[in-house]
């Protein structure tokens, strides 16, 4: 097999792996669900055209030349998409380093490693682009139907920003390895991915709150101040926006630039990819200094369980990044809360649903990790304490963590509006309890490392958890604004939770 054939073969292998990983994510690894997953995806894509039309339909008629505020809005949207792709790409690169079990096989094969890893880098870029194309297709479709075929150029922009995001992600991750070592990179890369993914939106929201007292990002983007700071209309900064509108020259430059960037990253980092992978596989993370204590903790058996769960949650890099993401989204409402102390506007009511929603979602993730994600299930099952005590200790851990995270916000709210603080606290408790209960009813023994795929074990539980969080968030907000509407929404959400219990496997 010559070098070109070997690389083509490896590229096919990588694409097949990526396809199967994605398929396993969609089907929970169950045979016979492939057709259902594809049909579900097509239906989802079709349905997505409706929100896409609502969000973007009015922009289909846009024609060049554009004014500055419009260019700012389009460019910011493209930058947001790029930030999200970068976040996903960093996560993919980290997964390749830490979770793939084939590195030994690849590195022991008689093929030039730099070439092999170039293909792997290209595969990461392709998977990032494929996901972005999948999500952007309904939006581009709406623009093409409403504004003509020139909008097809937007697919080219998606491809170009996908390529550049993958290139930057690989460079960032490998530089992190060099700077802080393999053990910290995993955590830092996860945190970085969360900050990049959410950071841009949050920064805009904070700017909007501080300047205009609203959570709307468009208030900042379309402001005179933004237009005054923006570069001239001929600037390169606007190339992505122009390319999306069908400017062939801008599109060509964008794609060429992205390809060149990825090529440079491949040339520089492919040879180092192997070294980095080796250092990851050889590395065992030492505990922080001072962990060797003279004595073991005294306490009851449930206390031992709670201590173990809290320690594992604290040391889980995926969870830390997820929690950080949730907490980052709480920053804008926190700023709004802080601002409201000197402002009598009613915008503060928006804080409550955001907090309740975040609490429900976080509780669901924590409950899955503690209840289903038990790596030593046999050990816990053979321990001399009843199963009910084990479950109770695990639920207590979820509630302790939720309490620790959300209590400060509720306390701050108490100073602004005692009634709102009370409603928020109650809704946080109900949302967290509902999400935990759903995870308990649908629990399936799994490894903690399967956390990212937890939604595949039961789609029903995933949807029920999401609807429950949204429902309790809406209930809390409406209780403050229109109490009777809050009561109705609360009853509807309680009915959803009750229906979920009725059809849950634990009840059966």
């Amino acid at each position, binding site marked *: 097999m010559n070098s070109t054939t070997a690389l083509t073969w490896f590229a096919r292998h990588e694409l097949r792996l990526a396809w199967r990983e994605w398929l396993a994510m969609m089907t929970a690894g169950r045979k016979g669900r492939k057709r259902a997953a594809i049909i579900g995806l097509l239906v989802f894509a079709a349905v997505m055209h409706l929100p896409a039309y609502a969000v973007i339909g009015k922009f289909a008629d846009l024609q060049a030349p554009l004014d500055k505020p419009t260019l700012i809005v389009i460019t910011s949207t493209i930058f947001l998409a790029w930030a999200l792709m970068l976040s996903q790409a960093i996560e993919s690169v980290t997964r390749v380093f830490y979770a793939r079990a084939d590195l030994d096989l690849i590195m022991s094969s008689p093929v030039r490693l730099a070439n092999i890893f170039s293909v792997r880098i290209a595969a990461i870029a392709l998977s990032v682009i494929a996901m972005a194309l999948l999500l952007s297709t309904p939006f581009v479709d709406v623009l093409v139907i409403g504004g003509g075929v020139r909008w097809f150029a937007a697919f080219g922009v998606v491809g170009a920003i996908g390529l550049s995001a993958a290139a930057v992600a690989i460079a960032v991750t490998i530089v992190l390895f060099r700077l802080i070592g393999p053990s910290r990179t995993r955590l830092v890369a996860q945190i970085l991915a969360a900050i990049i993914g959410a950071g841009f939106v949050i920064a805009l929201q904070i700017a909007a709150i501080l300047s205009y007292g609203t959570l709307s990002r468009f208030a900042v983007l379309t402001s005179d101040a933004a237009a005054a700071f923006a570069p001239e209309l001929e600037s390169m900064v606007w190339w992505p926006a122009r390319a999306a509108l069908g400017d062939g020259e801008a599109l060509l430059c964008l794609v060429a630039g992205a390809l060149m960037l990825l090529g440079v990253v491949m040339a520089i980092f492919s040879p180092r990819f192997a070294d980095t992978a080796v250092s990851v596989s050889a*590395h*065992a*993370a*030492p*505990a922080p200094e001072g*962990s*060797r204590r*003279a*004595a*073991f*903790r*005294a*306490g*009851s*058996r449930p*206390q*031992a*369980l709670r*201590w*173990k769960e809290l*320690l*594992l949650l604290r*040391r*889980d890099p995926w969870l830390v990044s997820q929690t950080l993401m949730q907490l980052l989204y709480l920053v804008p409402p926190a700023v709004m809360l802080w601002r409201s102390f000197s402002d009598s506007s009613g915008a503060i009511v928006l804080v409550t649903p955001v907090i309740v929603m975040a609490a429900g979602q976080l509780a669901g993730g924590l409950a899955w990790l503690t209840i289903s994600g038990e*790596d*030593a*299930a*046999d*050990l*816990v*099952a*053979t*321990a*001399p*304490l*009843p199963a009910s005590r084990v479950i109770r200790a695990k639920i207590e851990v979820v509630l302790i963590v939720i309490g620790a995270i959300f209590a400060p916000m509720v306390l701050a709210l108490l100073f602004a509006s005692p009634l709102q603080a009370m409603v928020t606290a109650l809704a946080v408790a109900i949302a967290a309890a509902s999400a935990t209960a759903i995870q308990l009813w649908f629990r399936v023994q799994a490894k*903690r490392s399967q956390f990212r795929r937890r939604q595949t074990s039961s789609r029903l539980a995933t949807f029920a958890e999401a609807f429950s969080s949204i429902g309790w968030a809406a209930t809390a907000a409406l209780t403050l604004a229109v109490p009777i509407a809050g009561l109705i929404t609360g009853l509807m959400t309680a009915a959803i939770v009750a229906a979920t219990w009725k059809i849950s496997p634990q009840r059966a």
Partner: protein
Amino acid sequence: MKPQQSALQVRGLTKRFDRPAVDALDLTVRSGEFYALVGPNGAGKTTTLRMVAGLLRPDAGSVAVFDIDALKDPVAAKQAMAWVSDEPMIYDKLTPLEYLEFVAGLWGIDPAVSRASAHDLLVSLGLEPHCDERCEGFSKGMRQKVALAGALVHDPRLIILDEPLTGLDAVSARHVKGLLGDRVRAGCTVIMTTHILEVAERMADRIGVIAAGRLVAEGTLAELRQQNGRTDTSLEDLFIALVHSEAAAA
């Protein structure tokens, strides 16, 4: 003379999946005995021991651990037992010392006692230099040793081990065998499944041969030889003969 207490008494134990996995099994293991359970793949060894450890509910039958009904009072029975599976289940994000602290806490052992015991176990298993490293970087053998230390740290009266020597190097395997031998000499009961018949032959006081979910032969090596009329044969030859004759009868 006072009759010797049985560490484990199983009567009519039955478990069916798509076919009978354990078929009305009767088994008695005496206190202070090293008992080896051998049998071909799929014979029902692991299923039997998982039912004894409380990890699987039997369809029928009874399990008594030191005269405690393990089905009626599982918590009291579990207090006296430890279970080690062939696939070591430990926490990647805990260090061996933290793992042992957790296990000791679960069994409600006095921290002062368990700390000293944990230290001794880590030293004797050669894990002391790694006691502050997280288990995520450990080899399978090291993980197995951590799991074994977890089983021993609460000083159980009955240790049940499912293929405990899988993945261990020769030195570690000898360590583990020595450790188990010491425990038996100290009065502990050990029940172990193994495919390494030489280990069963050397270490076990009695050997049970299980096939198709039933105990087809039981006794010391000499008794097994006598039962089969082969006075000068190895356990391996006996095992093959027993399993073949059982398969032929089925």
